[in-house]
C-alpha cells in the first residue's frame, strides 16, 4: 500500500460528505484542526484505506455522479465502514464535536449546522439588535438570486 498525503484529500472528502463547497469549508479555518482530529482518533489503517479508496472512486473516469453517490452510500457511509470515518467526519464539521466531545471553542462556533439553518451558534457570531425580527440575511439574499428554496 502506497502511503498517500491525506491532507489534500481531506478537504476533497469533506466537501463530498458535508455538501459544503471547498471554499466554504476553508473559510471556517478548521481544516487543519479537523484533519488532526481524525488522524488522532481514527485507526491508521481505516484512514489509509478510506482515502485510497475514495481517491480511486473520485478519479475513476468510468464513474458518473449517480454511481459515485451509490458507492458512497453503500461503501463509505455505513458505521461498519472505515471505523465510521465518514459519519464521524460529517458530524465533526456540522457540530464541532467528535463523539460527545467539543473539539474547541472554535469548532463549536464554526459548526456548519448553524449556517445550514440560517442561524448562528448560540453565544457567538451574533447578528445584531433586532436581526431576529426579520428573515435571515442568507434567506433574503437567496431570494434576490431567486434560488429554488428562496422564500
Amino acid at each position, binding site marked *: 500500500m502506497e502511503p498517500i498525503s491525506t491532507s489534500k484529500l481531506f478537504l476533497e472528502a469533506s466537501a463530498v460528505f458535508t455538501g459544503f463547497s471547498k471554499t466554504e469549508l476553508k473559510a471556517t479555518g478548521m481544516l487543519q484542526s479537523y484533519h488532526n482530529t481524525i488522524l488522532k482518533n481514527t485507526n491508521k489503517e481505516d484512514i489509509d484505506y478510506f482515502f485510497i479508496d475514495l481517491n480511486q472512486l473520485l478519479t475513476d473516469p468510468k464513474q458518473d455522479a449517480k454511481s459515485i453517490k451509490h458507492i458512497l452510500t453503500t461503501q463509505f457511509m455505513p458505521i461498519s465502514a472505515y471505523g465510521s470515518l465518514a459519519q464521524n467526519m460529517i458530524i465533526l464539521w456540522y457540530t464541532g464535536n467528535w463523539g460527545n466531545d467539543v473539539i474547541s471553542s472554535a469548532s463549536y462556533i464554526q459548526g456548519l449546522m448553524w449556517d445550514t439553518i440560517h442561524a448562528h451558534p448560540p*453565544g457567538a457570531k451574533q447578528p445584531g*439588535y433586532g436581526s431576529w425580527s426579520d428573515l435571515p440575511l442568507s434567506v433574503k439574499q437567496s431570494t434576490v438570486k431567486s434560488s429554488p428554496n428562496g422564500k
Partner: protein
Amino acid sequence: MENNNNNYDVVIVGSGIAGSIVAKLLTNAGKKVLMLEAGLAAGIAMDQEANYKNYQDYLSTFYNASAKVPNSPYPNIKDAPSIDVLDIKKTPSTEGYLVQMGPIAFASDCTRAPGGTTLHWLGTTLRMLPNDFKMKSKYGVAVDWPIKYEDMNRYYEMAENEIGVSGNVKDQNYPIEQKSVFNKDYVYPMKVIPISYLDKVMTDIIDKNSKIILNDKAYKLYCISTPQGRNSIPNYDYDINGVAWNPGTKKLDITRNRFKEGYNPVGSNWDPYTGQRCEGNASCVPICPVQAKYNALKTLRKCDMGNLSVKTQAVASKLLINETSNWINGVEYKTYIKGSSPEYETHTAKATIYVMAASAIENAKLLLASGAANSSDQVGRNLMDHMTVLRWGLAKEPLYPYRGPGSTTNIPTFRDGEFRKDHAAWILPLDNWGWAWPTFSPGSDVTTAVSEGIFGKELRDRIENRVTRQFFTHFECEQTPDPNNRVTINPEYKDNIGNYRPVIHYNATEYMLKAFEASGVVSEQFFDQCGIEDFTEYNPQDPDYVTYKGKGYSFAGAGHIVGTHRMGFNKQDSVVDSDMRTWDHENLFLVGCGNMPTLGTSNPTLTMSALTFKAAEAILKQLEQ
C-alpha cells in the same frame, strides 16, 4: 463604625438578585453590610480586567461544554455544590447536590456563584396578576397572600427600574377583569424587544384561528409581547431615576428625572459600552456574552462600596440563636480554600440584622439546620415550580428559529379564569430556539440524519428544510402549594465540608395532572389549527414522567424554585410576615422566591425582587428605630 470589627448593621447571605438589591439599598442608605457568598472569589471581581477575564472563562467553558445546560458555564464547586439539571434521575436518587426521595424528581436548578442564578436566567419579567394574590378567596384553591396586587404596584416599578425591563405596556392585555394592571401613563424603562420572525408568522396564524374548546368552554388564543430584562432602546417617556431611602418618612422613594431623559441602559460589568443593546446572541440561558441581559452583579456594582464587605468562598452553615431573646446572634460560615478539598475554617459573622438570600431551597435548608424560624412547621414545605409540559412540532413553512432571545411573545389566554377552580393556570410562551430544549436540536437532527446514511447536499437540504420549520412551546403550569412537597434534612446526607444536603420530597397533585391533561387538549387543537405536525413524545423513561387517566406526560422544571418559607397572615400559618421578617426572630429577614405563598403564571423573579424592595424598606426602618 468599623468594617473590620464585626460591627456590621446587616449580614446578607448570598449575592444573587435578592441579596444584591438589599445590599445596594442598605449601603446607599449608609448602613454597613457584610455579604457572605458561597461561590468562588473570581466571580465577584469588580475591576474591569479581572471581571472581563472571569467572564470570558465562563464563556469559553460554555463553548466547550458538551451538554449546554443552564449551569454549564459556571464552576460546580465540591465544597458548595450547585443543584444541576444533569443530576435529575428517576427517584429515589442521591446523585448531585439534592437528595431526591420522590416519588418524582424536583426538576429545576440554580447557581452557586457570585451573582447567583440570574447569570443563567432567561430574563422574562412579567408581573403577577391581581387574582394570583387571592387564589383562596377567589377560586377556593391554595392560599391568599397577605399583600394585594395594589400594594405591590410601586414595588414592581422599583424592580422594573432595577432590572431594566424592556417592554410595551400597551401590549399587556391579560385575561382579567381590570383594564390595566399598570399605573396611568406608566411605561417600561426601555422599548419592547423586537419580537421574532417566528412570532410574527405565528401571531398572524393564531389571530385567524377559531376558538379552542376546553371542558365545554371556548377560549381564544392570542399573542402579546413579553417584557424582559435585557437592553433595548431607551424609552424617553420613562421618568424614573431610581430608588432612595427617605429617612424622614422612613420609606423608599421612587426618584424621578425632572426632564425626560429616559433610562440609561446598564452595560456589561467590564465595560459600560458593551451590552447596551441585546445583540441577538441567542444564548441568554446559560450566558449572555455581552451582558445585555440583566444579572445581579449589575446591582451589586451599584452598592456604596465603602459600606460593603464581601466574603467569598464563605458558605453559611448555621444561624446562632440567643435562647433567651430568640434573636439571631450570628451566622456560622465555613470558608474553603480550593473548592475541591474537604478543608475549611469555621467563622462567625455578627450584625444587628440578618438577611438570608441563598435562594429558596438553600434558605430553607439553613433554617432547618439551625432549628430557626420554624414554630409554624412551614419551613421547607410548599416547594413549588412551574411544572412545564413541552410541546413541539413542524410548521408547514420555515419559521427560522434559533435566533434572538429565548422567547419574545407569549399566549396569556390561560393565565387566569374560572378554570383555576379545577386545574392549574399556565402561560404559553412561543419559543425562539426550536427544539433545542426537548431534543437537543439541531445537533441531534444531524446525528440522526447521518446515522440514516444521508450525506452531502441531501443532508444539507434536509437539515435546512426540517430545522427551520421547528416550532416549540411550553405550558408553564402554576404549581400550587402542597405541604408534602418539601425540603428536609437528614444527618446521613452531608456535602464535602459537612453541610447538610437538601433532601427533597416532591409530587404532582391532581390539580396539576388535570392541567397537564388540559394542556394536551389545548395543544392538539392549537397545533392542528396552525397546521403544525406534532412530534411531541413523552418517554416513560423520562425522570419526570407521570400518568393521568391512561395518558403519560413528561414535565420539566422552569427554574422557578419557590415557596419554601412562605409569607402569611400570622405566626401559625407562615414563616415570615408581609415585610419578610421571620415571625420567630425579630432580627431575621428572608428574601427570595421562598417567601411567595403562591406562584401565579409569571416567572417569579420580578415579583420576588419587588418583595425584596419591600423587605429592604422594613429593614431600614427597623435599623433606624
